[in-house]
């Protein structure tokens, strides 16, 4: 069953087209990897799927309901059904929010406006903290965490929210290699163990786990290729995507793309 669908969606910012026209169907149980260089419209695509960005043309359909002009019923539905992990979220480090507070935020939209958290909310938060190994850190201040621990806390927030569709914007970006791997495994765990439908945006092919079963390559806001990872992650297609010769390797089901020439060719003006 399709959870979200874009039909010829076109997004413009300041009169400039930043995404589309693009059609995409996210079915229940899909694990989509959205890959592209910086500025290719990946984050915009996630924002459209989350109802945060309106499409200038085309249609956005969520659970068979059109997301139109921010209608309240779709907003409430989106708040319950979609979890969004931001690449960078600004927060005031002076505010003393604990790890537990941040995980509870996931329940804010589920619990209902102005309602107190109930037993189900407390249980969801407890389970999320324990399953992600954050129980010992629950009273630690969020501002005192490392970048990797913060992302892990944000994943716990998504788990507590219990949303069916998770939209993850560069979950492993900006972290050291150890944390990149840990986060990649945690994302895979969300899919394999918890049965979530995932759309993961990344500029780095290496950050997609082996279980990713659909890939969309975006270049300058337009789809370059879409399909199973083995069909899309080919040297010729990735070379076209990044504008330099790329090589692809596969190990334990995961794809790794690398180029020894990209930077040099661009520096030399080739």
């Amino acid at each position: 069953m399709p959870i979200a669908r874009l039909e010829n969606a076109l997004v413009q910012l300041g009169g400039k087209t930043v995404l589309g026209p693009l059609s995409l169907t996210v079915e229940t149980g899909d694990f989509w990897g959205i890959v592209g260089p910086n500025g290719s419209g990946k984050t915009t695509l996630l924002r459209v799927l989350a109802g945060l960005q309106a499409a200038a043309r085309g249609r956005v359909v969520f659970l068979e309901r059109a997301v139109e002009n921010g209608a309240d019923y779709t907003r409430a539905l989106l708040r319950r059904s979609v979890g969004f992990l931001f690449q960078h979220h600004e927060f005031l480090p002076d505010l003393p929010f604990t790890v537990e507070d941040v995980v509870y935020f996931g329940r804010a939209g589920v619990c209902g406006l102005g309602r107190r958290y109930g037993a189900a909310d407390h249980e969801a938060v407890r389970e999320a903290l324990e399953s992600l190994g954050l129980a010992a850190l629950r009273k630690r201040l969020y501002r005192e965490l490392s970048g990797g621990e913060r992302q892990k806390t944000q994943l716990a927030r998504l788990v507590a929210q219990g949303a069916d569709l998770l939209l993850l914007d560069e979950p492993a970006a900006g972290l050291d290699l150890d944390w990149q791997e840990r986060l990649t495994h945690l994302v895979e765990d969300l899919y394999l163990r918890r049965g979530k439908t995932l759309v993961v945006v990344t500029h780095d092919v290496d950050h997609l786990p082996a279980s990713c079963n659909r890939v969309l390559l975006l270049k300058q806001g337009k789809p370059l290729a879409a399909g199973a990872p083995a069909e899309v992650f080919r040297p010729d297609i990735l070379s076209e995507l990044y504008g330099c010769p790329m090589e692809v390797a596969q190990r334990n089901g995961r794809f790794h793309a690398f180029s020894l020439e990209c930077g040099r060719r661009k520096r030399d003006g080739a």
Partner: protein
Amino acid sequence: MMTFFSVFGIILLAVLLGGGTAGLTGVFVMGLRMPFLAVCSAHAAMAGAVYGVVLHERFGVALPADAAGFAGALLGAALLAYLLRRRSLDPNMALGALFSLMLGLTFLGIGLIRGPKSAAWGLLWGSPLFVTPGQTAVMAAVGVFLGVFLYVFHKELKVLLFSREMAAVLVPQGWILAALLILIAGVITINLEIAGGLLLFSLLTNPALAALRVARSYRATLAWSGLFGAASALGGFLLAYALDLPAGACIVLFSCAVLWGAAVWGKKRVLRTEKKGLSAEC
């Protein structure tokens, strides 16, 4: 003698209510990274109150200063909400533009007043000694509204304070923010008489900043900020009363002293915790 004490009691109550509510709302003004919101709303309220005087003088429309001030602050909040909907505009830039507009309108309004301008100048500096029992009742009502709002929507407000971007995904951010802006407008209006439009900014920001130096949770931040706000207003007022100094200025300077004290206390606590951690490691 009895009258003196009852009048003084009402003034003290007004000072405590004004300072406490200013401290509480200050957490949101600072938490939303919009410190300029306080000064902008204060000037919008001041402009409203000044034009209330102009309307009364020119057209005989008798509008209480508080109501006119609240209308001005609401108009300012509505304009701000409209500007914030345009995501391309940075909130602080929108506030800067709005502040200039309100300041210009205030001084134009003061210029338009034909009779004595002392009431208008009073709005700039503030003086709790002129607070009436009616105004104190309004302050208490605003305080109750604020308390209920903070209690009922505490989880939504926490998300909003943590990240507006995240709040947009998780809660009806627009409604909560609009309600918060209206409450901030109300709190600023009732405090015009206490600290004055020019100095009110500090009564909103300093207690919140002080609370952020010492608190270790959201609830504690609110509690400390309300307490620091009330203490600043009361301490400043009593100092002004004892030494026959301008009340608004003393309140603001007292809030600066509270901030300084909290910063020292917070720093000492961090050092103590670090020391404890080091000895535990040894």
